[in-house]
């Protein structure tokens, strides 16, 4: 089911939290909403989830305009809030029974759905324990499970991995990828570029409540002012012929020599690095040190906003 945001705008008094945001999320894909804290991501998610009415613009769920309150279109949406929105004192199964019942699911249907989401999030063996006894990662997984009970076609994940260990993060990524493979529409909000690079098919970069870029990951990386760089230090400076040969290799976009340091810009570091090393070695140059730097979304964000994601 397609989720479309059209010119969303939201103000809180004098503060414009969301100025003009438009994008669409497609079934079977993960759309990343990337932006620093305070960029307007959570407000956007609130409008996408039907928690907040936009001052201007609309949200369309499978073609229908989304309202707030008891709007039936909300049944198609599952929200994973940034906070651990759980009832800590009630057993996990009771948590799931409660959140499932909010969507009108009851009886055997609810029991089956609970078993399914517990299986999906690897929590089946802890169904009788309350979340207050869980690790951070398990609580995050349960937080996701609660949003899946009513089998939403659209899943909004608002910073779902905050404060979890790498193992749990991988487990969460696995769940998200499985959901995307199953044809769900996923909107993933984060300020971790590594997560966007790992998960998202398409990325919407937001800052100050506006969309700065909306593209595939490769498309965004192509906008990076700094390309992938291979930095090599040799025992002697490569001569002009060697530099010309390197420049002529496929996928090499720039070659610069500074003393013993050779800097090579490449489209793909994985294929460029062995070729460069091989050609220079054949000419008798011995590489003393090799480092590489891959262009990333941080560079893209910096070029788009003039500030770093991590500064915020």
């Amino acid at each position, binding site marked *: 089911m397609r989720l479309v945001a059209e010119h969303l705008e939201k103000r809180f008094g004098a503060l414009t939290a969301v100025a003009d945001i438009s994008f669409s999320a497609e079934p079977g894909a993960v759309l990343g909403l990337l932006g620093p804290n305070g960029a307007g991501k959570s407000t956007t998610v*609130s409008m996408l989830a039907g928690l907040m009415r936009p001052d201007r613009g609309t949200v369309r769920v499978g073609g229908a305009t989304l309202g707030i309150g008891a709007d039936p279109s*909300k049944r198609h949406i599952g*929200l994973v809030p940034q906070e651990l*929105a759980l009832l800590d004192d009630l057993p996990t199964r009771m948590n799931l029974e409660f959140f499932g019942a909010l969507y009108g699911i009851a009886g055997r249907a609810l029991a089956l759905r609970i078993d399914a989401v517990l299986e999906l999030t690897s929590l089946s063996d802890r169904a009788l324990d309350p979340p207050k006894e869980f690790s951070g990662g398990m609580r995050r997984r349960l937080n996701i499970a609660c949003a899946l009970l009513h089998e939403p076609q659209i899943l909004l994940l608002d910073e779902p991995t905050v404060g979890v260990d790498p193992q749990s993060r991988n487990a969460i990524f696995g769940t998200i990828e499985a959901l995307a493979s199953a044809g769900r529409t996923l909107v993933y909000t984060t300020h971790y570029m590594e997560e966007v690079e790992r998960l998202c098919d398409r990325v919407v970069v937001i800052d100050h409540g506006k969309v700065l870029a909306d593209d595939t990951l490769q498309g965004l990386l192509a906008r990076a002012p700094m390309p992938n760089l291979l930095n090599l230090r040799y025992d002697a400076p490569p001569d002009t012929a060697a530099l010309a040969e390197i420049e002529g290799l496929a996928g090499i976009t720039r070659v610069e020599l500074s003393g013993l340091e050779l800097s090579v810009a490449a489209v793909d570091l994985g294929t460029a690095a062995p070729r460069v090393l091989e050609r220079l070695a054949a000419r008798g140059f011995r590489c003393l040190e090799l480092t590489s730097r891959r262009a990333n979304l941080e560079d893209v964000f910096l070029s788009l906003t003039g500030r770093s994601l991590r500064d915020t």
Partner: protein
Amino acid sequence: MNSLTAFRALVRKDLALFLRDRRALLVSVITPILIAGFFGFLFGGSGDDSPVTRVPLAVVDQDASGLSKAIVADLGRDPSLAIVSMTREEAQERVGSGKLRAAILFSPGFGAAATEALAGAIAKPAVEVLYDPSQPLVRPIVEGLLTQHVMRQVTRDAKPVPFTIKNTAVSSGPQYNAYAHSFAGMTVQFILFMSIDAGVTLLLMRQQGVWRRLRAAPLSRFVLLGSRVVGTTMIALLIFTAVYLAAMFIFGVRIAGSVVGFAAVAVAFAILAATTGLMIAGVGRSVGATRGLSILAALLLVMLGGAWVPAFLFPEWLQNVSEFVPTRWAVDGLDAMTWRGLPFHAALLPVAVLLGWSVVFALIAVWRFDWEGE
């Protein structure tokens, strides 16, 4: 159907969370029983055949005439007084230190002067009463009893007073039970405290994102807030039931009036408590400040409502003011149905007032509720 399933789940969730919270159970059920038991004991217990509390009183007879001795002897036979003879200095010291409530002093020559004064021959002699200013109610009692005993002795040769006093405790119920009032007051107080917790919990749910998740579901405001009212009302009724079962089986409190009337007052007050919680959640912003201010407001409400000290002991202006306080109607309604033993129709006005306030509180809650705030 979907909304009904959700409504039931929301109510069940509130009940489950309350019943699993041992601290809440302890505070809401055990504490009012203990405090009401203590206050009830202080204010006269179950009102059965327990002896009347005697006022400790000193007598200083510097006259030592036949009349003064007869009066002192008569005072000593009074069941409401505990008379001790002593010197003026001792009396002053013991009244001043609070060990005695008051002292009566018969000056030398009192007997002769009193007899002559009765005939109008000379000015009346003075009988001095020393009293503890912290016990202002004792002074008029002592004055009245003293007058009664002096006149009885002075006029003993004349015709006796042509009546006797027969004391009858007037209530429609079988017997006054101080526990009945104290349990009414403390139940009201602790249910109000529970309602504060319910309101603050809603604020916490907002902070912790649970509220966000509830609002993400296709549920109307009516379902979200209405289920909250029903859940809190049911918790209040659970507390009511538990506390009054203890009151009945341990402290002998009886619903001497209408059982239906008692239930109606209990339900009306439970609804009031639930809407109070909702109003707190609607008006409150930060959890800490809201909790503090709400407790202060609740204490004022129960104090003015006569939950601690019966409202009839208030000055008249305060009694009038307290009629605008909903807790006053709850306490009075419960008193009416328990120890006063009044019929069902006596519960109607308290129920109507409590429900009226509930509507006001609910409207304020809906008006002030910040739906979009996270």
